[in-house]
């Protein structure tokens, strides 16, 4: 494979994470060997961006928005309900690897505040009573 423009590193990392759920070390080393992008660069990117995970991750990622709009519309109550429903806090993964829980600075859909994302799905105007239903929707 010809050397790859280093600007393509982030999309490549995203694809790998979509495939494996996280960025396995062997896969990144293989990617480096195949593309000529130094492993050091890939590791630097993977640790710089919060979206990337180097450890094994849940099958689904729950992202609770803590942007300003969500904050004033009660995101903390939503966060507490999710924490309780899943039995984990932000940055953790459920024992059955079903869910990993994260907070994000803003998902850019303030008109829907408070917002929760599961993988690529948006859930707007969430209230604590909806949490159980949302969390039940993914295996």
């Amino acid at each position, binding site marked *: 494979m010809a050397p790859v423009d280093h600007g393509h590193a982030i999309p490549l990392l995203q694809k790998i994470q979509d495939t494996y759920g996280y960025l396995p070390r062997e896969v*990144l080393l293989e990617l480096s060997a195949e593309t000529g992008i130094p492993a050091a*660069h890939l*590791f630097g990117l993977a*640790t*710089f961006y919060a979206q990337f995970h180097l450890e094994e991750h849940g099958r689904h990622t729950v992202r609770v928005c803590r942007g300003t709009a969500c904050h004033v519309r009660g995101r903390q109550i939503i966060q507490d309900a999710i924490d309780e429903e899943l039995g984990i806090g932000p940055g953790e993964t459920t024992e059955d690897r079903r869910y990993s829980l994260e907070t994000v600075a803003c998902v850019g859909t303030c008109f829907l505040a408070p917002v929760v994302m599961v993988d690529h799905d948006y859930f707007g105007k969430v209230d604590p009573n909806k949490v159980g239903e949302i969390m039940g929707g993914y295996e």
Partner: protein
Amino acid sequence: MPTVASALKTVTLQIDGREIVAQEGDTVLEAALSVGIDIPRLCHDPRLKPVGACRLCVVEIEGQHGLLTSCTMEVAEGMVVETETDQLAAKRKTVLELILDDHRVTCPTCDKNGDCALMDYSYRYQADQFAFGGFTPAPCEPNFATGNKAIAFDPQLCITCGRCVRICDEVVMASALTFKQRASSVEVTTPFDMPLNETSCVLCGLCISTCPTGAMYDRAALGQGQMKDLEKIQTVCPYCGVGCTMELNVNRETNRIVRVTAPEGSVPNDGNLCVKGKFGFEYVHSDERLTTPLIKENGEFREATWDEALELAGRRLRELRDQHGAAAVAFLSSSRCTNEENYLMQKLARTAGGTNNVDQCATTCHAPTVAGLASTFGSGAMTNAIDEIKDVDTLFIIGSNPTAAHPIIGLEMKKALAKGAKMVVCDPRKTWVAEHADIHIQHKPGTDNMLINAMLHHIIEQELHDPEFVESRCENFDAFRANLEGSSVEQAAEVCGVPADLIRSAAELYAAGDPSSIFYTLGITEHTSGTENVQNLANLAMLCGQIGKRSSGVNPLRGQNNVQGSCDMGAMPGDYPGYQKVADELVRTKFAEAWGLEMPTNKGGVVTDFIDQAGDGVLRGFYVFGEDPVLSEPNQAKVIANLENLEFLVCQEIFMSETAKLADVILPATSFAEKEGTFTNTERRVQRVRKAVEPPGQAKPDWEIICLMSTAMGHPMAYGDAGEIFDEMASLTPSYGGMSYDRIDDVGLQWPCPTPDHPGTGFLHEGQFTRGLGAFKEITFREAAELPDDDYPYILSTGRTLYNYNIGNMSQKSGAIRQKQSKAFVEMHKSDADRIGVANDDLVTVATRRGEVTVRAVVGDRTRPGALWMPFHFVDQPTNRITNDAFDDVTRTAEYKVCAAMVAKG
């Protein structure tokens, strides 16, 4: 290429009230530094692209808002800059206090004390380490450098300026280091925090050299002396022919070299060193150094006095000379030693020794260069300066692995690549340059002339050559062209085992480069057709007019620190110093008058002749100085048997080498760090070597020993110091005639330098070749002496690795190097390994018609299928036990690059 005139556009600006003329494109910081205005800076290193991260170099610029980083700000006409104001001092103090909040202040125990930018600036601006609360110690081990014997890292001292990460990326292109995490959690590490020796790190230590604090440091130097207490002695690296300027940091109380550094902007290495220069000095202080003269009695060595040893050695050599004539004694001089010592050794051979039997290891490596380029151009040396490499447009590299064998020239090539140069690499192995080349021709070992002839043929056929250059500067073109008529790219593709289109593209890229330059090493010379290979590269350069100008020529990269110098000094049978010919009666008369003795007229031989003649009983007495032919010459069993047949063998050595074990007398000598003198590097630069530490025991500087030996042989020789020898040599050597220790004190001079006001010569053959017209040679491809067959189906080549050096007796004394590479190995292609059931790291036996060695297999795709590659650095499994003693017709250089071999598991 930009012309000199256009590059010199100047800009006038004012800094701190001083009018300064800078070059367009310079930064304000560079302009200030050029006149000694020391703007504080922590993330800046002139080797790196500026990033403006540390904010210390901020300045005030009239008419501009706010404070601006001088390292990123380009100069402009009429600009008015202030670098030290109350406002700037206050800002800098705050920046330093923020940095100190993240830096554990350990100055009393830190090695860097005395050369620490953070300490100096904190003092200058009186920064308070507790202004923001103070540093909270945290565990710093383990980290990626834990356990590494070369490089250590203390994250508590790291100020995350990023210089180590950037130099590893931008300059070394190894990309072993990175930042992980972000904001206040940022930390320097390796990918996945892997141990350094498992990453792409090449152990050059440039991370240490650029670190402004003590965060990156030499592991072995810890506690051996703080920078403020060490004395820096500027000298020249004792390893390869690049000739890097280095500083030995000496602790006078312990008489030890503590660490090696390189001054900023040093010539030719620009402040850079490689693993051998940086970490390879431990041998100087090794317990294995020879410290007294030794005499062999009844098969055992006993300690002797200098008087005893010299009397015996001098008397025996003289007797053998007197009784059996000039062919009975020979003198092997040393490319490891100084010009002064090589000059004296050949003088001793031709005066006290009465023979032209004098040689050094150029025969083992680059003698075909000296012969091939002298016959085509008139000068057997690198045509261009190292400093010119970065401006080459097309790098044409053949039979050379610069990033391993000449790492600092490798860095200069990387500078060219960073500027957009194209690169063609012809090499049977996938080296670093091959993997980064635009075109890699992975031809079969030993088919170079088939390949070069095809390129020449294609260039002429497509009329890509430079007819005007050929017409006005060269001769014998018609015969040369007629000789190529039988060549074809298709035939070469078949014989070389590479696609025909690649050959065409390589030829076209070389012919079109503006300019192109050829670089080669032992992949060209160590063949039975070595001299012809070199001549054919000269043909290529002349045909395309790619020689005789800046950044363009034919550049053999010389292997040993002073192999250029030992040739220049006439430590060769047919040449006096400066390549003045022994065959020329006028020259002989000149030296007879200068040295006060009739000059010998025998033809003399080279080292490979000496070994054969020792076996034949023709050579009886042999004086070997700083060489170990038992390990370095091919077909070891034969070499040992022949040397054992000598009547008398004297070795002048720093270690008990394999050759010294066979000696009758051993004279303990000094390393490069214990004596004065000069080395001449591959670009013909003559540089000063300086004494840094006292020699061990009774060891003496080699030039003194040679004088004593000459005297003991009945021809008194004495000099007050090395400078006196240099002056005598310069007075007899036109190309060195304008040099003196005063003139070469700082950065040296490149020969030819005929007069005291001559500035030296960066590139050769401008306007005219040394010999007048460049001579085209008709070269016909000849196969290697030994080709694969059913019994020995592989082609074995040997070579140098990055981490070790030749016979390994210097590099293997370094703990850091041993940790990285201490065992012999053979590289083989995966398809071959699979077929015979060999896995990576398995022990295999590599055998040839001359013997066998057992080494680890390194399985991959670095070699071609059917090809093997081995380094020759390891004494316990010596590769030269199995190499072929078949020689180049002209120079008697052995064909180390091709012999038939077999491999079996176990």
